[in-house]
């Protein structure tokens, strides 16, 4: 079985631009969560989606948004990029909200 897949693996954007990151969960997993990991720090929770509905939101500005599609894949969108948005963005999936999550390898976003 394929694990959690994220695309793209690396991305370079300019300040002020918009970015869309994509995540395909493990087959059968209905819950997807997004985390931001700044270099040298632990991951920080951004969003959780379950059955296509937002079920949790971390302490991130409204420039960050996400959605989950009928096939349970997910997108994370970030508008008006700042230099401080440079980070590894991790997607994690689980059968449901109460079980352990499996992480993907992430998308490395660099904002210049």
């Amino acid at each position: 079985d394929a694990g959690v897949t994220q695309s793209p693996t690396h991305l370079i954007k300019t300040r002020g631009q918009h970015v869309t990151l994509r995540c395909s969960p493990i087959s059968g997993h209905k819950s997807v969560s997004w985390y931001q990991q700044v270099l040298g720090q632990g991951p920080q929770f951004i969003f959780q989606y379950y059955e296509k509905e937002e079920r949790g939101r971390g302490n991130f500005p409204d420039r960050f948004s996400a959605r989950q599609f009928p096939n349970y894949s997910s997108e994370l969108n970030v508008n008006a990029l700042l230099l401080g948005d440079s980070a590894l963005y991790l997607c994690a999936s689980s059968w449901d909200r109460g079980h352990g999550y499996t992480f993907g390898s992430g998308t490395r976003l660099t904002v210049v």
Partner: protein
Amino acid sequence: QQQVKQSPQSLIVQKGGISIINCAYENTAFDYFPWYQQFPGKGPALLIAIRPDVSEKKEGRFTISFNKSAKQFSLHIMDSQPGDSATYFCAASQENAGNMLTFGGGTRLMVKP
């Protein structure tokens, strides 16, 4: 504020030695405490997890010790190997509230041959 504090930030251990990483949490509602291992260029991988109804859990060379009254938990890696060299993160969550993980700051472990 929900926080998980992790120490040390970095750790060097000789092959065959014991690696010990400590974490402390503030939110008494947390009821699930996993440890993750992360290699460069990869996402975190679940190593071992514990719930507060037990004080210790062992899986192979990895052991979690949990002290509910002190709000502390630790990871012990016995017979540390060079292949264990990675960054380790403790985390905490409320399983019945969506299991959204709060991570510690990480410990970079180097095991010397």
